[in-house]
């Protein structure tokens, strides 16, 4: 790239030289000595004038442009217009250029200011969400302590005496509902943490066969009771690096849903795994009534219920699948469903064998002593 100054100097130097050279030629070839002399002096004057003029023009153009370039570089570093109105110039174009730049800079400054305000507001909202979630945790869990305590005491003959059958049933119902409520509070907190990106994954090497057998063992009693089949389907054992408890939570949730939705006596649930390069794909398949396309797209949304009628058989908060989705996506994977009406429904989830988790901040412990 050629700087303006040098270019102008070269051009004016060459033209001054040509004028000067023509003056000398004129002087040497002219018949009239005085005319030649005049021409020579004239040419020297013109050549000097050209050079001086060039020096003046070049400095008056390049100096403010250099300053402007400096200001622009500064602006791109700091996002702030410094040295405003510092550029003095008589060149109209440069004046306009500088003015437009400063106007633009001011606008950018204002936009950044507004943007920062929004960022601050969002951060504040996040803080409030965290505060809210810990408030929910504390305020909702605290009254559960005496409720659960007294119900458990009532359930123990040796502590508060024998109850009659009706009383015993009532107390058992209260106990079941209390545990459900506790689980719901836990689910809400987990959802909140997923939203805030505060769910932490504790990853380790796990064998998928262990995972599948564990699930079969967990659900066998319910399957036997409901007279349905539950089988594990996989070819070879694969070792993956992921959060065992969270994967188990997802798998268990999907399996429980499947068992809930198949018909007693003829129901069939298959859990399995497929190897696919860097990923591993799990699935839970059932031969239940299926899920229509319309429901499928909203299935993983929070608080979504397929059956909203008051007669609906399955309880649940509508948070289960939203939590599954959050966990799988947090592990860098994907969850989806495929369904054929009245034939089968399959839930798939795919995670990297060596997952690189997206979320990372330490999670508040969700483990309740009650579950141990």
């Amino acid at each position, binding site marked *: 790239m050629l700087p303006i100054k040098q270019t102008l100097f070269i051009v004016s130097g060459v033209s001054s030289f040509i004028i000067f050279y023509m003056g000398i030629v004129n002087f040497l070839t002219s018949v009239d000595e005085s005319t030649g002399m005049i021409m020579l002096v004239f040419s020297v004057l013109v050549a000097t004038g050209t050079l001086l003029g060039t020096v003046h023009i070049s400095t008056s153009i390049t100096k403010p442009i250099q300053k402007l370039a400096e200001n622009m570089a500064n602006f791109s570093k700091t996002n702030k217009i410094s040295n405003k109105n510092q550029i003095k110039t008589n060149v109209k174009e440069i004046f306009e250029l500088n003015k437009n730049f400063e106007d633009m800079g001011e606008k950018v400054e204002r936009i950044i200011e507004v943007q920062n305000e929004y960022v601050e507001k969002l951060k504040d909202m996040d803080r409030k969400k965290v505060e809210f979630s810990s408030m929910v945790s*504390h305020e909702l869990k605290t009254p559960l302590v005496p409720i659960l*305590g007294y119900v458990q*005491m009532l359930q123990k003959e040796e502590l508060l005496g024998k109850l009659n059958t009706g009383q015993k049933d009532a107390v058992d119902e209260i106990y079941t509902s209390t545990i459900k409520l506790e689980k719901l509070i836990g689910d809400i907190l987990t959802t909140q943490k997923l939203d805030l990106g505060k769910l932490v994954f504790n990853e380790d090497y796990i064998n998928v066969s262990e995972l599948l057998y564990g699930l079969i063992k967990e659900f066998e009693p319910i399957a036997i009771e409901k007279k349905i089949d539950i089988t594990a389907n996989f070819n070879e054992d694969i070792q993956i690096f992921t959060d065992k408890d969270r994967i188990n939570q997802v798998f268990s949730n999907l399996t429980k849903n499947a068992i809930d939705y198949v018909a007693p006596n003829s129901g069939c649930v298959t859990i399995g795994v497929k190897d696919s390069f860097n990923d591993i794909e799990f699935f839970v398949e059932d031969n239940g009534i299926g899920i229509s396309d319309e429901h499928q797209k909203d299935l993983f949304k929070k608080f979504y219920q397929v059956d909203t009628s008051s007669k609906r058989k399955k309880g649940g908060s509508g948070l289960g699948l939203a939590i599954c989705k959050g966990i799988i996506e947090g592990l860098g994977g994907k969850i989806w469903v495929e369904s054929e009406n009245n034939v089968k429904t399959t839930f798939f989830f795919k995670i990297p064998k060596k997952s690189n988790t997206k979320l990372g901040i330490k999670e508040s412990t969700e483990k309740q002593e009650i579950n141990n």
Partner: protein
Amino acid sequence: MSKTDKSKEKIKNLKILIIDDNEQITKMLTTFLELKEQECTIANDGKEGLNIIKENRHDVILLDLAMPEFNGYSVIEDLEKNNLLKDHKIIVFTASTITQDELDQLVTRGVTSYILKPIDIDVLHSKLIDTANL
């Protein structure tokens, strides 16, 4: 089996200090523990709890972390400052969002154990036995 019997015998007439600002909780816990023939003392805030800890020995101390003003953490800090923390068997319990790291840290500092609310009274019972027998 025999080991459990023995430890159950041992837990009889344990002196338990419960520090919690929630009266419904302390009432439930004393009702339960007294039915289990334990001796309970109640403190409804951290300051009161700390005074009782310094005056009388207790076999186990159940300490709520989230209390207004002088909370469970302050109690632990005070005991730590006076080199008393390791002399007592403290089970912290809380309904607040607390990370596993924070809980582990408390144990490293000298808290014996922890339990999260809501409390399963059977779990609480066995935890008391275990802690008292340490």
